[in-house]
C-alpha cells in the first residue's frame, strides 16, 4: 500500500452535519442550500394553505392582505427573498458546474453569487419597505 495514497472519501453520516469543525466554504454553501431548501418547501405549503382564503371571498382575503402589509410580515418577506436568492443563485452555480460549465471557476462563481445575493437582498428590502 502506497504511503501517498489519498484516503478514500467517506460519505458523512447525517449526524455529522452538525459537526462544524474544519469545514470548507463548499460545506457552508451545501448547508445554506439544504437549510434554505427546507425553509422554502415549508414556505411553499404555508403559501398554498393561505391562498385557500381566496375561496372564502373578498372579505377574508382582503383582511389577510391588510395583515400581510404589517412591518413584521414585510420583514418575513425579506427573509423569503434572501432564501430565494441564496437557493437560486447557488443552485444556478451547481447546475452550471454539474453540466460541466465553468468547473475551474466554481469558487469565483460562489463569491459572485454571494455578492449578488447581498446586493439584491438589500435592493429588495429597500423596495419592500419603501412601499409600506
Amino acid at each position: 500500500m502506497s504511503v501517498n495514497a489519498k484516503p478514500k472519501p467517506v460519505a458523512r453520516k447525517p449526524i455529522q452535519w452538525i459537526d462544524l469543525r474544519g469545514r470548507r466554504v463548499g460545506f457552508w454553501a451545501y448547508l445554506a442550500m439544504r437549510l434554505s431548501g427546507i425553509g422554502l418547501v415549508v414556505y411553499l405549503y404555508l403559501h398554498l394553505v393561505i391562498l385557500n382564503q381566496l375561496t372564502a371571498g373578498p372579505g377574508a382575503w382582503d383582511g389577510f392582505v391588510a395583515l400581510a402589509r404589517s412591518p413584521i410580515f414585510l420583514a418575513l418577506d425579506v427573509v423569503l427573498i434572501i432564501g430565494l436568492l441564496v437557493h437560486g443563485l447557488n443552485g444556478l452555480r451547481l447546475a452550471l458546474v454539474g453540466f460541466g460549465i465553468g468547473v475551474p471557476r466554481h469558487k469565483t462563481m460562489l463569491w459572485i453569487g454571494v455578492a449578488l445575493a447581498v446586493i439584491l437582498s438589500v435592493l429588495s428590502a429597500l423596495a419592500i419597505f419603501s412601499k409600506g
Partner: protein
Amino acid sequence: MMQKTLTRERASSWSWILQAITGVLVIVLVGVHMIFQHFVAAGGLRTYADVVAYIRTPFFLGWETIFLIVVTWHALLGVRAIALDFGLKRSVERVFNWILTIIGVGTIVYGLWLTFTVISRTS
C-alpha cells in the same frame, strides 16, 4: 453488487438532472411570479379583485399553472434528496417515492382546484 451500484447511480443522476432543469425553470418562473405579484402590485400584495383579474389573464394563468407544477416537482425532489442522504433502505426508498408522488399530485390538483375556484367565482 456492481450492477446494483450502477443502477443506483444512474437513478440518482437522473433525479439530479431533473432537479437542475426544474431548478433553472423555477428561477425564471419565481422571478416573474415575485415581480408581478409583489413588486408591480400596489402595496406589494393584490387585493381580492386584483387577484381575480390577474389569474383570469390567460398568460398569467398559464404561467402560474406551470410554476405550480414545476416548483412542486423541484421541492419534492429536494425533499427526496435530503431523505436519501440518510441512507434509506431500497424498500423504504420505494415507499417514500410513492408517498412523494402522491403528495406532488395532490399539491398540483389542490392548486388547480384553487385557481379555477377563484376564476369561476362570480362575486
